C-alpha cells in the first residue's frame, strides 16, 4: 500500500497547473516513458521578471504527479535566481515528505527546474528527452534523421542513429515518430 501524505494525495488527485505554456521563457523535458516517469515543465516570466506562470505534464506514479504539481506552485512569484535555489528536498518537504523509494520523483522535479532555467538562459530545449536510453538518442535527433533521410522503418532509424539498437523497448516510440514525421511531411508537401 502507498505511504503517501495527505498533501501528496491532494496534489495527485487535484493537480495544479497541468498543461503546456505557449511560448514559454523556459522549458525542459526529463525522464522517458521507458524508465517509468517523465516530466515536461514550462514557465513564463511576468513583467516584473518573476515567474508568473508554470505548467507541467507528467507520466508517472502518484508521487511524480504530485512532485511536479508542487514544483509549479512553489516557483510562482519567485525570480529565476530564487527558484534556482529550490532543491528536491524542498519539493519533498512541501509535500510533507515522500517515501524513500519515491524520492526520485522530487529529484525529477529538481532536474526539470534546473534544465528549464538553463533553457531560459540559452541552452537548447531538447535537454534530456531521450527516446533510446541504451545509446542516449533524443527524440529530436530521431525526428531529424527521419525527416532528412526519409526513413520509414525502425531498422533504418537504428542504422542512422543507433536508436533502438539495444534493449528494443523504444521501438514503438520510434515507430510513432516515423508516423508523425511522415504525416507532417505529407501535409507540407
Amino acid at each position, binding site marked *: 500500500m*502507498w505511504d503517501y501524505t495527505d498533501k501528496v494525495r491532494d496534489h*495527485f*488527485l487535484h*493537480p495544479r497547473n*497541468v498543461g503546456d505554456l505557449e511560448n514559454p521563457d523556459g522549458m525542459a*523535458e526529463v525522464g*522517458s*516513458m*521507458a*524508465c*517509468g*516517469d*517523465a*516530466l*515536461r515543465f514550462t514557465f513564463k516570466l511576468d513583467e516584473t521578471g518573476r515567474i508568473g506562470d508554470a505548467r507541467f*505534464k*507528467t*507520466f*508517472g*506514479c*502518484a508521487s*511524480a*504527479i504530485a512532485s511536479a504539481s508542487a514544483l509549479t506552485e512553489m516557483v510562482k512569484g519567485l525570480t529565476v535566481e530564487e527558484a534556482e535555489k529550490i532543491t528536491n528536498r524542498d519539493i519533498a518537504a512541501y509535500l510533507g515528505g515522500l517515501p524513500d*523509494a519515491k524520492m526520485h520523483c522530487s529529484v525529477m522535479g529538481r532536474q526539470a527546474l534546473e534544465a528549464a532555467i538553463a533553457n531560459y538562459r540559452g541552452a537548447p530545449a531538447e535537454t534530456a*528527452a531521450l*527516446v533510446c536510453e541504451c545509446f542516449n538518442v533524443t*527524440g*529530436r535527433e*530521431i*525526428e531529424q534523421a527521419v525527416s532528412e533521410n526519409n526513413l520509414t522503418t525502425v531498422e533504418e532509424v537504428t542504422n542512422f542513429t543507433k536508436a533502438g539498437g539495444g534493449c*528494443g*523497448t*523504444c*521501438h*514503438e*516510440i520510434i515507430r*510513432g*515518430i516515423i*508516423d*508523425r*514525421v511522415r504525416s507532417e511531411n505529407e501535409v507540407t508537401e
Partner: protein
Amino acid sequence: MNVVYLDNNATTRIAPEVLDAMMPYLTGDYGNPSSMHSFGGRVAPVVEEARGHAARLIGASPDEIIFTSCGTESDNTAIRSALAVNPDKRHIVTSRVEHPAVRELCLFLARNDYRVTEVPVDSKGRLDMDAYRESLTDDTALVTLMWANNETGVIFPVEEAAGIARERGIPVHTDAVQAVGKVPMDADSSGVDMLSLSGHKLHAPKGIGVLYVRKGTRFAPFLIGGHQESERRAGTENVPYIAGLGKACELALEHLPDMNGRVRRLRDKLEQEITARIPHVKINGDTENRLPNTANISFEYVEGESILLMMNEYGICASSGSACTSGSLQPSHVMLAMGVPFTMAHGSIRFSLSIYSEEAEIDFVVDKLVDIITTLRAMSPFWNNDSRPAAGR
C-alpha cells in the same frame, strides 16, 4: 464507499460457509486431534473430511494430501524435498514467470551450488516447449512449472511438460495456486508428482495450504517434529483452518461451472468494453488459454500506480505490474519475460474476478476507467490533447 474487489488473484474473501465451518473449532471444539481423549479425538474426522474435499477438487486420493501453512510452504517443501531425495542431481528446470515462492527459492538455490534453467516464454506468455525439452538433462533433479500465471492467467501445458519429464524419470512439481478452483484439474492423470495450492485464493482464510504428493513419490519433510500428516509435515494440525479449507474446496468444485461460465463472460465483457471505449490498450497474455477470471490490460501513455490510486478513490481494487508498484525500477518479471515493452508494462493493470463478482461492478469499473485514463492521459507528456499519442518522445 462500496468496495469493488477485482484483485482475487491476490487474495479472496472468506466465504460465509467457510467461516461457519471453522467457527466450532475456533470456539468450543478446540481439541487436539492427536489426543487420547475423545474431546480431542473427535476433531480428527474433521481433518479427514477436509482432506477428502481437497482431494476431490484436484483429482487426488486423500492420502496424497498434506496440509501446510500456505502456498509458499508447499512450494518450498516440494522443491527442497525433490532435491533432498536426489542429492547427486544439481539441476532445476523452471520458467521465467514463476511466482516468487518458486522463483526466489530457485534463485537462492542457484547461489548455493545448484544450476537453474529458467525456460523462456513468448510474447503471449506461452512456455517455449522446445527450450523446455532441451533444458532437461541427466543431472536434472526437478521440474517446477506453474499451472497458471498469477499476473496474466496464462495456463501452461503442465500435463504435457510432466509427460516429457517423466519419460526421463525427472520428478515434476507444479505451483497450481492460481489454477485450483478456477479450472478443472485431475492431479492423478496430470502426470505431476507434487502440486501446491493455497486456501486464501479460493475463499478460505490466509494461513492454510496443501501440498499434493503422488503416491509412491520419494519425499523428505520440510518441518521435522511430531508425527502429524503421516510424518510428512510436523506441527499440530490447524483444525479450524483445515476445516475451512475443506469447505472452500467443496464449494470451489460446485462453483467451477459458474467460474467457467458466468465469471468468464464477465471477464470477457470487461476486456471488450475497455478495448471498445479506451484507445491504445492491449490485452496481455494468451487469450486462448487463460484462467477464466483474469484480465491483464496495458493502458499506454499512463502509469499503473496512478491508475490504481485513482481507482482506489472509487473503491476499486486491482493490481499492477508497473515498476512503481513492484518496489524496483523495473516492471514485473512476468511482463519483462514476455517482452512487453516498458512503455506498455508500466501501465499494466491486472483485474481478477471471483464468483462473487457481479455485472454491475464490471459496468462501474469500465465507466470509471474511461474517466481515469482520460484524466491521466491529459496529464501525460506523451499524449496530445486531441486524443492521440504524442510521437517524438
